[in-house]
């Protein structure tokens, strides 16, 4: 039991070490301090999204709308600060509220109609993306106030990028919520057996909606960081990031079946994806090769992880033959 648990929680870390070692030896310029910081900065946004996604996944749902939410929030916040000349704080709060509202709509719809969260959030991703384009007729929003650049591009102690700090804080908070609070355990209960949770007096509707709101809210935070990183509101921002966030979660051991996985795995997951993308790019692999390798590694990590949990190959094959 304990032994099994160890393997299962460590698959992602082992993979991370393996990948990092391979790149360090095989790729010139990979194993430098500067590149380490670059990787950190590059995974920061995915880390924020993945942390939010993990709430929804563990609660037994999925949120494919985070990439579009990120874009919409970025656009609205940018417009609020430029065209509408709102104070930065107000614009940020507005952006956050939009993210949370989108999450709330996702959660409420899934709760009321009992529809598949995959479909609900997929539909929402189309809606939010369309709206992101419509806010400024498809054009990006430039000329943001210079002061906001620090969020996406600044450093703390001259070395640690600010987005990394934001991500770290969010992951620490998230892990705390999962492990130590009622809400965290209720989310596990909801994802593990919603009927049991309900009959145990857990307000499952509230908990579910809250999980989606957290995901939406963190997508909004990611949107603001992204906006600052590219120093503009971009309607195409975050395109496909929902899948990267999902992958980071799953690679980190969070099951799409719900009720299982540890938030801390998100860290491992996001680094595996981040190191891989960065290392391949620096190694000069073509985009085509990168796609194949990314797909292959994704399959490999999750397969190994899943296999180490379900036990022997031959046993399984025999049983269901």
């Amino acid at each position: 039991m304990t032994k099994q648990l160890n393997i299962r929680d460590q698959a992602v870390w082992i993979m991370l070490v393996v990948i990092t070692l391979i790149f360090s030896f095989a790729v010139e310029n990979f194993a430098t301090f500067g590149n380490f910081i670059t990787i950190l900065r590059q995974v920061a946004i995915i880390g924020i999204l993945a942390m939010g996604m993990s709430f929804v996944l563990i609660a037994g749902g999925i949120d494919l709308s985070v990439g579009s939410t990120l874009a919409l929030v970025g656009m609205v916040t940018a417009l609020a600060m430029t065209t509408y000349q709102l104070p930065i704080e107000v614009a940020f709060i507005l952006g956050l509220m939009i993210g949370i509202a989108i999450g709330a709509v996702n959660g409420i719809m899934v709760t009321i109609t009992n529809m598949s969260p995959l479909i609900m959030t997929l539909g929402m991703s189309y809606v939010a993306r369309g709206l992101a384009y419509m806010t400024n007729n498809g054009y990006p929003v430039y000329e943001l106030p210079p002061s906001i650049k620090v969020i996406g591009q600044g450093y703390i102690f001259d070395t640690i990028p600010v987005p990394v700090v934001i991500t770290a804080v969010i992951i620490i908070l998230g892990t705390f919520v999962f492990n130590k609070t009622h809400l965290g355990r209720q989310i596990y209960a909801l994802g593990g057996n919603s009927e049991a949770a309900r009959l145990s007096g857990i307000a499952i509707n509230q908990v579910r909606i809250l999980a989606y709101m957290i995901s939406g809210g963190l997508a909004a935070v990611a949107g603001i960081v992204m906006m600052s990183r590219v120093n503009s509101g971009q309607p195409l921002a975050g395109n496909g990031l929902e899948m990267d966030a999902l992958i980071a979660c799953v690679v980190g051991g969070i099951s799409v079946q719900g009720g299982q996985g540890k938030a801390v795995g998100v860290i491992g997951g996001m680094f595996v994806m981040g190191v891989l993308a960065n290392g391949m790019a620096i190694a000069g692999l073509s985009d085509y090769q990168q796609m194949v390798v990314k797909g292959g590694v994704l399959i490999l990590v999750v397969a190994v992880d899943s296999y180490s949990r379900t036990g022997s190959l031959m046993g399984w094959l025999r049983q269901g033959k």
Partner: protein
Amino acid sequence: MDKDSVLELKNITKSFPGVPRALDGVSVSFARGKVHALMGENGAGKSTLIKTLSAAHMPNSGEIYLNGKLIENMTPHMALKLGIGVIYQEFNLVPALSVAENVFLGDMPGNMVTIDRAEVERKTAEIFKEIEVDIDPRALVQDLTIAYKQLVEIAKALSRKVQILILDEPTAALTASEAESLFRIIDRLKVRGVTIIYVSHRFSEIFRIADSITVMRDGRVVQVTDAKDIDRNGLIRAMVGRDVSDAYPRRDFPVGDVVLELKGVGGGIVENVNFAVRKGEIVGLGGLVGAGRTEVMRMVFAADKRDTGHILLDGDEIAPTSPKHAVALGIGMLPEDRKHQGLFLELPIKWNITMAILRKLSVATVLNKAKENTLVSDLIKRMGVKTPTPMQLPRNLSGGNQQKVGVCKWLAAGSRVMIFDEPTRGVDVGARREIYTQMNDLCRQGIAIVMISSDMEELLGMSDRIVVMSEGEQTRILEKDEFSQEAVLFHASTAK
């Protein structure tokens, strides 16, 4: 209103799609500090009544009074707050959480925001000690067998300060000794003034603990009596509306040659099991919870991996590699956990019943639906499955009727060796009798049966021989003339 009455129901009705009167104007009251047995055939409405009390279901109409106060718009949370604790017939546990977290689910110790994990585990251990079971509070529920899950359910209900404790067939998966420790708990709670509502199909238990007995039939309360004023036959008559012979039906035809033989079978916790089953014979497997009975037979059926030993069918060694293979060899198995292993809750009853014989029903892969329909309606009638249509989903059936559907599936399969794992779990007297008759019928046709049962009466009543197991090992084979409750219990608790 009765002064002692804690809980009073007035005119409760509840309908489901296709079942217009699951509850049909139920009025009943429960007195403080008493054990009320709720009895009735499968589908009589017992579980539904209980679920309206805990707000798992909303009744269509009617009123519920608690301590004389009308309770409106009840939610599960409110029910718990009001001190109504329920152990449901179907488990309600979260597999991926620890035992301790399940016990305190929805009510964890800690402050407003955070939980106190150490406290949760300590308190859980305390409760287990009180009910005399040995489960690691940190184990994950998904790793427990069904009987242990039942014990966790009990602990969960006890973790709350209940004034009304409702138990829906809590002993269906338990053996006599765990059941006895449950009764001791009930006795203690009673002394503390807790009201108990207890649903069971086991008469001996009812007469052991009940103060008053409420009998339901077709969604209505047909009789409320003091337990001391009614006897077993009277109770059966009230439930079923007719007499059902109490004794186990006799089989008086000769048994044949050995069909199935286990030689030194082992794997998992199981070691070295040896016994044989003859044509037309029922071999009972007895033992305490976790003795490994299910595990042995799952190995025979190739549902689990076997490490050692030989299995002989008609004297020839067989090595089934998968359940499909086992079925093809003529072995059938009714699993103990109908919800997870037996039934397709979301597929029609009809499909459930023919699932093991699809190949036989089809010509060149195309199903013969006419044949399927006649076969299914015949079986439904024979077993008395209470359902509006064969296309009904098992999810909407009462627990006992679900069990009958599972039995139908294997009756249809016509296997030469049948393994019945807790065949009458949650089944009412009438239907029980029906299942026994069917089992005897199978014997008459020359089929060899292995029956795992935790119901002592059934084990003693139905078996030709009893293989007793303890902690994964076979401790004794009892022949008919050695049968007694004491003998089974003695060998079941023999340490290695």
